[in-house]
């Protein structure tokens, strides 16, 4: 979805910047950070549709970052980038709630496809959530303010 907000997290700065440029070329709004801690900070500040997260990072690794993201309870989907060796970890990440994973090096089109999928999932979940909340408002108009929680 053109204009979707993407948070790119990868300790490989050049790769991260290149990916950001490529995604920006495809009309996405991209923020690039180089570690898990910065990612969490960004997520606390702003809303993102999809987080593209590298699995192997110094400090807070991809799995821990994912856990933290899940703790925030945001309407955001996470895509994991991994080398071949960490397929097991990628599967573990999916169990923890990640949308999907991609192996490096990957084509930009492939990534875009996954981002689109993740966005659709996030959008669906968000809409469903909104519908449920609206339903509750209809049933109990006093809860209208909860819509903006």
């Amino acid at each position, binding site marked *: 979805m053109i204009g979707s907000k993407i948070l790119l997290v990868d300790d490989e700065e050049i790769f991260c910047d*290149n990916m950001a*440029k490529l995604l920006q070329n495809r009309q996405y709004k991209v923020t690039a950070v180089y570690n898990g801690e910065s990612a969490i900070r960004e997520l606390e500040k702003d809303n993102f549709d999809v987080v593209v997260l590298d699995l*192997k990072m110094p400090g807070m690794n991809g799995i821990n970052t994912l856990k933290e993201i899940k703790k925030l309870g945001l309407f955001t989907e996470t895509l994991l980038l991994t*080398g071949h060796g960490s397929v097991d970890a990628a599967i573990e990440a999916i169990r923890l709630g990640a949308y999907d994973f991609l192996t*490096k*090096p990957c084509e930009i089109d492939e990534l875009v496809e996954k981002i689109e999928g993740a966005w659709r999932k996030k959008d669906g979940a968000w809409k469903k959530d909104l519908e449920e909340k609206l339903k509750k408002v209809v049933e109990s108009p006093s809860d209208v303010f909860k819509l903006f929680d």
Partner: protein
Amino acid sequence: MNQILESSKKTQYSRLFRRFILLTMICSLAPLLLAGWAINIHYSRFAKERMEKMLRTRVEYHRKIIEFFLKENRTRLDFITQTHSIDFLTKKDRLSHIFKTINRDSWILTDIGIIDENGDHIAYVGPYDLMDKNYFNTFWFKEVMEKGSYTSDMFMGFRKEPHFVMAVIKNENGHRWILRATINTEWFRSLVEDVRIGKTGEVYILNKKGIYQTSPGSDGEIMTLASGFEGEIHDGVKFRFLETGVGDSQTRKIVCETWLRDPKWLLVVRINETELFEEVRHANRAALISLHLSALIIFIVTVFITRHMVSVIKKRDGEVERMNRQLMQTGKLASIGELSAGVAHEINNPLAIITTERQLLQDAEKRTPITDEIFGKQFAESLNQIDTQVLRCKHITRNLMKFARRTKSVIETVDVNVFIREVIELMEREAKSDGISFKSILDDKLKPILSDPSQLQQVVLNIINNAIAAHEDKGYGMITIATCLSKDKTGIVITVEDTGCGITDEDIEKIFDPFFTTKSPGKGTGLGLSICYSIVKQLGGNIDVESDVEKGTLFTLIFPFKPPEALLNHG
């Protein structure tokens, strides 16, 4: 290098062989031979002593017989003189009757005569014409007159032939007369020689002066002087050795000598030592032959047993070496595996950057198309080449990752025969285009195994791919895949045999090493078989290869019915 190792091993085994033989010889043959020889020497000595004792006894006994004979005849003459008067004896036919009576059983006496104190014959019975002979001056007449009874030595006398006489004197009414008898020389000789032992045995009698009283056989004649006579009188039987002849004809004789009491004659029994101890020597020889035959048999058996033992050790050593090699291979693969994972990951990152850079360039080119045609063409070609090479690197890192991968195996029941048929079906088309046909020899009675089918497939496909590649230059060939129960019946065996170019001895050592390939650069990563190796090991199996250059290669895969417990729990 291999040849040097082989020859050093060969030397080692032949040294081991020699040492075993030497030890066994020292431990078994040396005591046997020592004991054998000791017993033999002891037995020989004992047997010789027995033989000597026997000889002494026989000689002693024979002396007694001769003495008895002489004494009996003297007593006989004495008896005649005591019981008969001279008048009676000189009457016609009386002496002849007595002579015949004495000689009735055997011809003991040659003649008998009565001689008066003047030395004249009064009566005579015998073959000689001696009636007119006067004995007054003969030595024996003087001796008998002096001693009353006398047994002479051998002498020639009036008859001019060797003989000896016995004479007794009787005093009758103041007149003395002598009864004299001549002992049959032949009869006496045969009596003496009766004790002769063996072919070389000689028996004779010497008088005190060393004159032969009976014919000695080879060394001299009767009534001649015996050589080397010492004349020393002794009791019992004297036992001594005598060397005769010179050079090759030299013989050692055993001489037994014993003195008769009356007359003082020496009974001599001689026999060749070799003949006397022939039986002992024969027994000795037989014992020694058996001893040495036993030693030879022990030696041969030792050689056979040792050869068998060394071959068993050699086989065991081979197995240990093979296991060590496998252990080393596994260790090597494990460490390379760890390294590969790191390397692949580290390469993946720059590859990812290169990929993104290429895509950025493509994006830029889309935004601002290149107007220069040649540059544009080169730009496109270069991007393509970057893409191709990145893919190539990606392929390598993917294989590296597979090699190092510690993913969980998915354990399922696998019918190996069905699985092999599927694999053949999968590969048949590709092989056919290369002129290669498949043949399967499957054991239908095989039970299914518990294993990871995708990993199994990866292994078998890899080996078949290699087999197909081995026929590259031939353009035809056959791949035979067989299944059977393993020898220890704890698993199954899959063999893949090809008729390809084979693998050299040098290459076969490194075949499971990562990055080892004989394919041209770019065609193979050299990881296929090392991945197979680690998969097979992970599944609790074994992989082995045998190859003959120009003839083909045989891969043997063994998988257990049940994979390792850890894998089962994991799965």
